[in-house]
Structures are given as structure tokens and as C-alpha cells.
């Protein structure tokens, strides 16, 4: 199996604070990996480094680009990383609120659109063909998440759960090979969460995706992830199969301990 996304000794410092230090990870094709840890452990910061929003203070990030070659991306802009095939969602939903559901998704097709501004300004046939293709493709994606009948609504008017789904659709529309999901089920009820996880599994199969997922709900991560990485105070304290990780004393102490007691 090929490695799609690899982080080597990734560290980032904000002021005097080491938010993440020496983060190592290897994401292989077809994996579904969970990134967990208590609040403030550095999960989202790690995502932000992997997607170019924060520049790491030191370390390397390597992505296998669409044509197969590995590329160092730690100096690239987010849009360049997205075009290499790594897409993400945001924990604190960042939809284009005042645009329609369809436009939210269409924007994510931008770098795949096969026409230039001049074609659009002159309304050449290639413009219409591409717009039609994009429209049909995006409606298909929306259909998968049962959002197709809401394509003309403004994103801000969707209920919370559907906004989270739209974030995923939008990321999918960039045609990624690797999808980074930042707490996709945050704020959903157990039933919705369960359905969403089924959906994530099925799109993973359908689109041949590799997924890295930040999640708070422990049961859920245990249920669908094949491998788990545990962060605490910016350091990886354990990784492995869900069953192994839950037995790790460090993990129990840092994070699971309290929850386990609560569950018991």
C-alpha cells in the first residue's frame, strides 16, 4: 500500500507555547484513522498544519500528488494542498453562509473547472459544457447526503446537522484522495451520528478515499477507525488498533480514564 500523507517530526510554536511537537504520522491508501485527544491537545492545530493554514515551525509533510509523485507541502498554500488531493472540513463550520447550498459545493470545483475567465466572459460553448458537468456532478454528491432538494437554499438556513454534511460534500467536490474531517459529528444526536458514520464509511468505499478523522465521541472512533492516534499536550502518546489504545495506561491516564469511569 502506498503512503498518501506523511508527517515527519512536525512541530509548531505559538509565542512561547509548543502547541504540537514532533508529530509523526503515516496515512496509507484506504485507511480510516482517528485522531483523538482531550481538548487543547493540538488536534485541530495538526489539521491546520497538514492543510497549510498554519506553517509548521519545523518538520516535514509529504503528500502523494495526483500524478503519483511525493511532494513536500509544508511551504505550500492551502489551495495548493487541496489541489494535490487533500481536502478538509472545519470543526467550527465555515460554510459560505450567504450563498446557496449548490454554490457552496460548486466553489469547491473551481480548480477542476476546465475553462478560463475569458471563456466565461464571452460565454463560449466550453463554458456551458463545463458548467453543466459541474452542476450534474455536484447534484449527485448532494444526493448522496440527501441535500439535493435543498440546493437552492442559503447555507445559513440549513439545520445544524445538514450544515455539517454540506461541509463534507464541499470537501468531496474537490475530488480528494485524502479527506480530513474535523469533528464531523459534533453537536449531532446519537442517531444522527450513527447515520453519519455509516455514510462516511460508504463514501470512503465509493470514492476510494483515505480518511483522517478528529472525533470527540470515543465510542464512535472505536467503532469505525482501523487505527487511532492519541495526542496529549501536543505529543503523540499512543497509536495503534482501537483495542490496544484503550488498554494503554498513558491513554487511560490522559484521556480515557475519566470517560471510562463515567461509562462504568
Amino acid at each position, binding site marked *: 500500500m502506498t503512503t498518501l500523507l506523511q508527517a515527519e517530526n512536525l512541530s509548531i510554536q505559538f509565542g512561547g507555547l509548543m502547541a504540537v511537537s514532533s508529530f509523526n504520522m503515516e496515512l496509507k491508501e484506504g485507511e480510516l484513522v482517528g485522531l483523538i485527544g482531550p481538548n487543547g491537545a493540538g488536534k485541530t492545530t495538526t489539521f491546520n498544519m497538514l*492543510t*497549510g*493554514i498554519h506553517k509548521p515551525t519545523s518538520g516535514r509533510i509529504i503528500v502523494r500528488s495526483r500524478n503519483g509523485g511525493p511532494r513536500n507541502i509544508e511551504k505550500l*498554500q*492551502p*489551495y495548493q494542498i*487541496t*489541489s494535490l488531493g487533500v*481536502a*478538509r472540513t*472545519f470543526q467550527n463550520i*465555515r*460554510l*459560505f*453562509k*450567504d*450563498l446557496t447550498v449548490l*454554490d457552496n459545493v*460548486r*466553489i*469547491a*470545483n*473551481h*480548480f*477542476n*473547472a476546465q*475553462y*478560463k*475567465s475569458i471563456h*466565461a*466572459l*464571452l*460565454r463560449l460553448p466550453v*463554458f*456551458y459544457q*463545463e*458548467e*453543466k458537468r*459541474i452542476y450534474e456532478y455536484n447534484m449527485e454528491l448532494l444526493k448522496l447526503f440527501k441535500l439535493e432538494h435543498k440546493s437552492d437554499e442559503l447555507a445559513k438556513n440549513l439545520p445544524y446537522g445538514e450544515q455539517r454534511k454540506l461541509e463534507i460534500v*464541499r*470537501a468531496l467536490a*474537490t475530488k480528494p484522495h485524502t479527506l480530513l474531517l474535523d469533528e464531523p459529528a459534533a453537536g449531532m444526536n446519537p442517531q444522527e451520528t450513527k447515520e453519519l458514520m455509516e455514510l462516511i464509511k460508504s463514501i470512503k468505499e465509493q470514492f476510494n478515499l483515505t480518511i483522517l478523522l478528529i472525533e470527540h465521541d470515543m465510542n464512535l472512533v472505536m467503532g469505525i477507525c482501523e487505527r487511532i492516534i492519541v495526542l496529549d499536550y501536543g505529543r503523540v502518546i499512543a497509536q495503534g488498533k482501537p483495542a490496544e489504545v484503550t488498554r494503554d495506561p498513558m491513554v487511560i491516564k490522559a484521556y480515557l480514564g475519566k470517560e471510562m469511569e463515567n461509562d462504568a
Partner: protein
Amino acid sequence: MQSERQKKTITSIILLVLGFVFLNALVAMRIIDEYTTQVLTIGAINVVVALGLNLISGFTGQLALGHAGFMAVGAYTTAALVMKLGVPIFPAIFGGGLISALFGLLIGLPTLRLRGDYLAIVTLGFGEIIRVIMINLTEITGGPAGLKGIPPFTTNFYWRPVVSFAIAYLFLVLVITLISNLLKSSPGRAIVSIREDEIAANAMGINVFYYKMFAFTLSAFIAGLGGGLYAPFFGYLSPNMFNFQKSVEFLIIVVLGGMGNLTGTVLAGFGLTYLQEFLRFLQDYRLVIYPLILIVLMLFQPSGLMGLFGNREFSLAGLAEQVNQLLFRKDPAEKAGEK
């Protein structure tokens, strides 16, 4: 689908031409008097510049405060091309737009990499500085005394208002078509996504800096075209015509009509130009009322006039459809079935 689209385009073009012929006939027959024709022409020029401003401030979300400066660059360039180099008026106007776009490019490159606020202050500074430069470049601009004797669109005195109006109208239609075609396309959606959320847009594969530059340069180009129309229409230019106050007037047109709405800019542009002619007696008080309008709008109706109508855009084809339905009482549902 294909034929539906073509039908729409053809309807729009026919209506545009009809409107053009009709308005010009009214002007030519002096049913619309010369004074009103002039006001309409000034209105069209103001709307052109305001549409340019709306592109960068309303659609891209980056406040620019120096559009009078870009207009000045366009106006003086056009005048210089015609008077010094003998370039015909139409290429000269486009030349004015291009030089203005070049200034936009130069200002945008250092500024648009940074957060949006810097563009506001840098364009404000540009608007002030360009005036200083214009005053000092006596060779081309005639200095503080101004530049006189710019050849008008036509030397025929009787037809001059008609021709000026027709040309301004043509450019207005051109600019509206340009912007609306752009907006309803992938690059246009990229531009609007920057206004909505820069970080998310970047993460969705949009080269944010590139599209800010694109929108700003195009915006400066359009303002330059407006200046290019201004020069032969008035026949006289002075640096103080393009002061900061003028830039704020364009901003008011955009904000009053609704940021990110083309219909609003057109309505507010003509409306305010018309009002301004009639409120001349208010003189300086106008300059107190204008900023108050800005503040009150921001506090209570930030989406402007068109925000009251769901921010919809007017379309000629849509109008034709409505009239068609009204006249022939065709049920829209039934019509959908026909397709």
C-alpha cells in the same frame, strides 16, 4: 436546456437594442430634454465606476476608497492619448482603462496579500497622492489649472448630447454584461467565496490572492473606463474633480443600492445622480447627509435597498418572461411541463 438558454439570450439582446433605440429616439426628438439627457449621461458614467467599485468591495469584500483616483487616471490617459497622440476616442477610452488597471495591479500586489483593511487605507492614500501627482505633471495634465479643450465625442453641436448618451449607454451595458457574466461562472464564484470566508475559500482550492488581484485590477479597469468617458463628455479635467469626496460618493452608490448587487448599484447610481442635480441648493449640507446615510445604512440596513427585495437581480429575460405570462396567462407549471 440549450434552446431555452439561447431564447433567453436572444430576448435580452432584442430588449437591449429596443431600449437603446427607444431611449435614443426620445433623446433625439428632444422628448427627453437636453438637460435630462446630460444628467442621464453623467448617471451612466457614475454607475460604470460604481459597478467597478462594487466588484471589489461588494462582491470580493475588500473595501477600496480611491476609485476617484482610478477614474482620474483613466480620464487623463484618455485625454492625453487623444490630444497628444491623436488616438481615436474608443481605443483611447480603453487605453485609459488599461493604464488604470496597471495602477490597480501595482497597488494590489503589495496590499492584497495582507488583511482587507490595508487596501482601504492604501487606496485612500493613493486617491490623495494621485492628485498631487496630477497637479505636478503639468506637461500632461495642465497642472492645477486643469486641462481644457478635450475633443468631444462629436463636433456636431446638435447631436452631441445624443451621441454622448448613446456611447455612455453602450459602455454601461458592456460593463454590466462583463461583470454579470463573470459572476455567474467559476471565477466569479471564487471571488464571492473570498468575501464569505477567506480561509474556507483557500481550503477549497481557491487561490485567494490571485482572485483578489483579478477583481481589483478589473475594478480599476472599469473605473478607468468611466474616467475615459468622463473626459470627452465634459471636455475639461482638473485634479480636484477626483477628490476623496468623489470616491465616497461612489461608495454611497454601492452601499445604498446594496453591496454585491448590480441592480442596486444601477438604481442607486442613477437615483443619486438625479437627486444631486436637484439638491444643488443643499450645497455643503449634502456632504453632511451623505455620510449620515452611510452610517445609518450600516447600522440598520447593511444590505442596502436591494436587500429589502431579497437581494435579487433584475434580468431582462426574466422581465420578458413575466410580461409574457401576464399577457398570455400561461401557467408556469404548465410551461415547465412542455419542456
